[in-house]
């Protein structure tokens, strides 16, 4: 008996994403953003997408490629301040932006991955983000219901993957990656290194293989993954 091999060509994995799909992307700034999978999604050309990502990257990289190509209808996020195009598109109405408090975005994704329908919190009760949310009385006070956030696809960037899709992440490149890997129907992981089964010790696995559908090995890492020169 051995574990299944999920390695796959990048274009083949990305070709599964149809128009209108919801797609979660890992990353907080550059670290953990699956730039090669995003680039493949631009080439694939699926449109009318709902993108779910902590931030909109900076001008000229990552999410910005999808915005520039006109593929995004809706963006569910916590911060877009470093992407002037995202801000402009939100302001002129060409992009529907839903802001979440950062940890609430993470927890809504975690809830989806944990198979629960949502949670109750008082985070943001005093803010404009509370408008329209269902109020809930609990024994410890009033809160709001925050629904679990699912997606059709998750595009993950890992430092290391094995053939079965066990993943490990590097430093602050972990961020939303292990969360989105639990919350989508189809999870595609790009990895800087793909190792044989057993190449990641069981104790060192951050995302267990059962969550991952496709593993794509990255060729030489493009410059966009490097240190940002400001």
């Amino acid at each position, binding site marked *: 008996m051995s574990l299944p091999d999920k390695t796959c060509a990048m274009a083949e994995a990305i070709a599964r994403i149809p128009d209108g799909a919801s797609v979660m992307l890992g990353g907080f700034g550059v670290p953990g953003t699956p730039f090669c999978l995003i680039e493949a999604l631009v080439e694939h050309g699926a449109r009318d997408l709902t993108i779910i990502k902590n931030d909109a990257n900076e001008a000229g990289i990552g999410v910005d490629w999808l915005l520039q190509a006109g593929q995004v209808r809706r963006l569910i996020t*916590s*911060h877009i*301040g470093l992407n002037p195009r995202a801000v402009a598109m939100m302001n002129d109405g060409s992009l529907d932006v839903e802001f979440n408090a950062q940890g609430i975005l993470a927890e809504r994704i975690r809830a989806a991955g944990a198979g629960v329908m949502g949670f109750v919190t008082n985070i943001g009760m005093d803010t*404009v983000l509370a408008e329209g949310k269902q109020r809930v009385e609990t024994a410890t006070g009033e809160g709001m219901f925050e629904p679990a956030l699912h997606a059709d696809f998750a595009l993950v960037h890992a430092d290391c993957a094995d053939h079965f899709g066990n993943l490990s992440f590097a430093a*602050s*490149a972990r961020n939303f990656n292990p*969360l989105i890997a639990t919350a989508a129907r189809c999870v595609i992981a790009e990895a800087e290194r793909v190792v044989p089964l057993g190449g990641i010790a069981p104790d060192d696995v951050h995302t267990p293989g059962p969550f991952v559908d496709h593993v794509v090995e990255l060729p030489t890492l493009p410059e966009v993954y490097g240190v940002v020169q400001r």
Partner: protein
Amino acid sequence: MSSNARSRMLARAAADIAPGMCVNLGIGLPTQVVAHLPTGAQVCLHSENGISGVGPVRPAGQEDRNLIDAGGSYVSTLPGAAFFDSALSFAIVRSGRLDLTLLGAFEVAANGDLANWIIPGRFSPGPGGAIELAQRARRVGVLTAHVDKAGNPKIVERCTLPLTAAGCVNRIYSDMAVCDVTPDGLVLRELAEGVRAEDVVAATGARLTVPDTELPVF
């Protein structure tokens, strides 16, 4: 704000970071407080993107492409640091593990209300982690110029901008003064060098109680 006044404000805020604390420093002015901590300070800095034990910013050429803080600076880690995902990072915040957060402000009100994430029609980058930090850190300090570039008070009776969190601020550090939010309103605690209490009262857009006692100078 002169660089000298800014530097003294940052140093004054740093003096309130006690040994043993777990602290989150917001993007902008608060991050600069680090430079004013004493060498060897036993403090755990938390960053929203999943780090406890953040160390100094790395010099050019020595960056780790996978290691930034929430403001995008290429940081180092201290011995004993840990990495974790964004859900766990905010579990640290919401469960009250942060002893202190220092944040920037557009407006801060005498009742402790804070507005620092949106100026409708002009600036709407999204809240990031500010709401949870403001609402759940055990103690919230605000670092801000006392007045804006047009000379208008940033410390006001009631915020006009959408709130980050209500009643969350404990202490305000400005280039002119240290003020505390108390159940009886704003109280002047300390004065910046060369600043008189009446100057602070005039530059504050809310009722400010000035104690009869001599105020410390920073």
